[in-house]
């Protein structure tokens, strides 16, 4: 299947002649101007979006980040429709230029969609007596949490600037923005894991 994927993709790209390519660029890369946008909060990770210069209003739009881990609020696209039938309304590359209220709406909505609580202290990491993995007991900005991590190597990711992202067995993620900034005890516990 893998090889299949590649080949088909390549073919598709090749079918576009140069002329088409530029056409596609103009049409598809539709950057939105933050000053033309008005956001209102909605339910279940959706927002209401007004694009002023087009005079359009959308009731149920989902914002999606292009860089959920490295910069949630940096490049955001707005999508309409459900899985399988999505339509991109446009990209917003500078959400920080949104109006204050709209910015807040976007921020809280993205926090819903990309839920990655920040770990403030590591209380203990228990070596699993069982099959594999460890149980982490931590404090996060969203409250206490205890979760299982399957593999140190795969699931505890060290990123630049001492950032660590831990993924638990269920696919939930937790972030330590800078592990050297944690309290001494947490650092000591974390020491064996990284």
């Amino acid at each position: 299947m893998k090889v299949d994927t590649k080949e088909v993709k390549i073919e598709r790209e090749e079918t576009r002649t140069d002329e088409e390519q530029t056409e596609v660029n103009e049409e598809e890369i539709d950057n939105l101007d933050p000053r033309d946008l008005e956001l209102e909060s909605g339910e279940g990770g959706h927002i209401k979006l007004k694009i002023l210069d087009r005079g359009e209003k959308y009731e149920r739009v989902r914002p999606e980040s292009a860089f959920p881990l490295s910069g949630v609020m940096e490049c955001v696209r707005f999508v309409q429709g459900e899985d399988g039938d999505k339509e991109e309304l446009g990209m917003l590359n500078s959400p920080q230029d949104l109006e204050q209220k709209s910015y807040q709406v976007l921020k809280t909505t993205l926090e819903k969609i990309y839920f990655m609580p920040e770990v403030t202290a590591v209380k203990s990491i228990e070596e699993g007596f069982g099959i594999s993995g460890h149980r982490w007991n931590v404090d996060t900005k969203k409250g206490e949490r205890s979760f299982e991590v399957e593999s140190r190597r795969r699931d505890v990711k060290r990123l630049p600037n001492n950032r660590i992202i831990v993924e638990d067995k269920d696919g939930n993620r937790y972030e330590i923005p800078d592990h050297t900034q944690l309290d001494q005890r947490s650092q000591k516990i974390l020491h064996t894991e990284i």
Partner: protein
Amino acid sequence: MNRSADRVSEGMAKQRLEEIPEAIEEKAEEVLEGEEPQLIARSDLNLEGYFEEDWLFVTDVRVVAFSPPDEEEQGAENVDYRSLPLEAIEEISLKRYVGNAFLEAKLIGGGSKDLIRFSLSYTQRFEWVSDKIEELQGEEGVEEDLESTTRERLAYEDRCPICGGRLPEGMDICPQCASKERLLSRMFQYLKPYWKQAGVALLLLLGLTVLNLAPPYITRLMIDSVFPNRNVTLFTVLIGSLIGVYVFRALFRGLRTYVMSWLGQRITLDLRSKVFSHIQKLNMNYYDKNRTGKIMNRVTTDTARVRRFLTQGLQQTLNHLFKVIGIVVILFTMNWQLALMALAPVPLVMFLTVVFANKIHKVFHRVWRRVSTMKAILGDTIPGVKVVKAFTKENEEIRKFDDQLEEVFSSRLDAAKARSFFRPAMTFSTALGALIIWIWGGYNVLMNTGLLTLGTLVAFVSYMWKFFNPIKALARLSGKFESAITSAERVFSVLDIEPEMELSSPSSQSGREVRGQVTFEDVSFQYEAGQESEVLSEINLEVEPGETIGLVGPTGAGKTTFVNLIPRFYDVKEGEIKLDGKNIKDFDLQFLRRKIGIVAQHPFLFYGTIADNISYGVDDVDREEIIKAAKLANAHEFIMESPLGYDSQVGERGVGLSGGERQRISIARAILKDAPIMILDEATSAVDTETEEKIQTAIDRLIEGRTTFVIAHRLSTLKNADRLIVLEDGRLVEQGTHEELLEKEDGLFKKLWEMQTTVSRI
């Protein structure tokens, strides 16, 4: 999925019923006004995204979510709740995002509402909840009570009934909570058939311990009784027994080594054979979820570790125990005051050993991880050196590597630090015992106080040296025990997975001729419960015997999944697939699979000769038939070109076969199998044009008269198919002959076709 439902005993069920906080229970009673809750489910996030427990109550008329109050203001009056009548809900859907998910209710007349929020650990639970709510919405409601829904939910969730941790595939109880005694007794089951040998080994061991402890005692007698009194008779006796001790020790040791090896290998053999035959019967799902290496480890490393524990570990422990007890008894009988003093450092030594073992374990784990990261960098950059050079990234790679070296260095240093403190500390504390003996004992001998003889002193010192090694080993025992138990758990966890499909069941269909009519009726499929979208949905298709069906569609449309369902590599979740009008689940699995031939994109050849590979899966074949199949598959020529012909080895040191050659061997294999149904999954996509022609003619011969499913990304190869079906996002969107589909304006097939023909024109 119901397998564990009955087994969740009352006690466990209670633990899992998850105590509802008083405040919420009180509030719920007030809000629900006598309506019976049909199901109750707890989440682990509140709507604001804090790790709090919201509770969802569903009655037959409404859904209510309760949020518990803050810690300071307990009490029902502070419980928040959101209530929604079932009538107002059009649809409930689970919105899965990154790290968390929502249950969202779409309201009749527009708009929607978030019911409850939870982390991904609870998606299974709430998926079940949303299905259940839908059922409750149905005309009459369902005859359910809280007890039974809870039980059903627990069975659905695949979580440990005791700790709530995620269960390994197919297990009923998590290894953490499995009783250690039960595990041990299960391990001993493997020792049981060989209890005689084990008993002999144990007796030899006891004898050895006694023999090992004898020499210092003999020394003592020599010094105290023989030399001062010039007792020649005793001297001869003692020398005789010394000779006896050494001879028997050698003899026992040799015997024991042999018996133990026999025992160990026997147990390994039993275990490995059991594990291997068991995993052969497991569903493809198991293989999808576990890496090959991991599965192989179960068969090799883990079984070996269980063996090591049962033989060496256990026996050594007994050995140490015997020794320690023996020495303590001897020491106390010789001189109890001195014994007390000499044994004083024992707790210190044990403590240090445990601390050291823990510390070193952690430190070395770290070293190991660092080193493997370093190796990963090497593994990336050296094969990719061309890219590195092309982008002139040499300096950056060097810096990255240097950084990693630095990390390796610092972790190694940690290990060195641990060692340079603990090792000397330990040697010193063991020497302490000997020191005490020399000081107190030496003084008494020197001053001739009569409390101690010279012989006893010498014997004491040599016993002391024998004493600390077993003590240290015993202190480390828990670690060893743990690793053995872990391995045992792994092995048993594999053995505990019930094969999802019985390879053969006597009651099922077999032995009949199969015509090859295949019918898909409302078939839907997803690989794992809880996935957002279905891989296949509501497929309906009827294929006549001998018909050739081409499967077309963009990548990820579900083509391979579609064909994988026919031999039951995976089982359909909804709807059914029928063969000659009978559900394929009613067929004997082995029989069913014998009736289906598969030629895949990358054919897998086993280690063995070419003839073996062609006749794989078919019993008792004539050589002539093998050659005939190879000829039909256009494989005969190249096979005969190699000097050993059909006896050429395939595999590492065998002949190098090209992709096209391997493909033709696998076609020959399929021809020989003579199955009424054929599946060709991208059979020609990995070969060059010239070979493709040869393969194509071979394939044409192969599929003649058989029901055939062909997947090919090159649409031109499907021209001859009787019918094409076009899949998109798991749905069957178009079907018809090549020409018919091309006539369809805006058809997906037409679009794909045009794309490909443009490419070939360029």
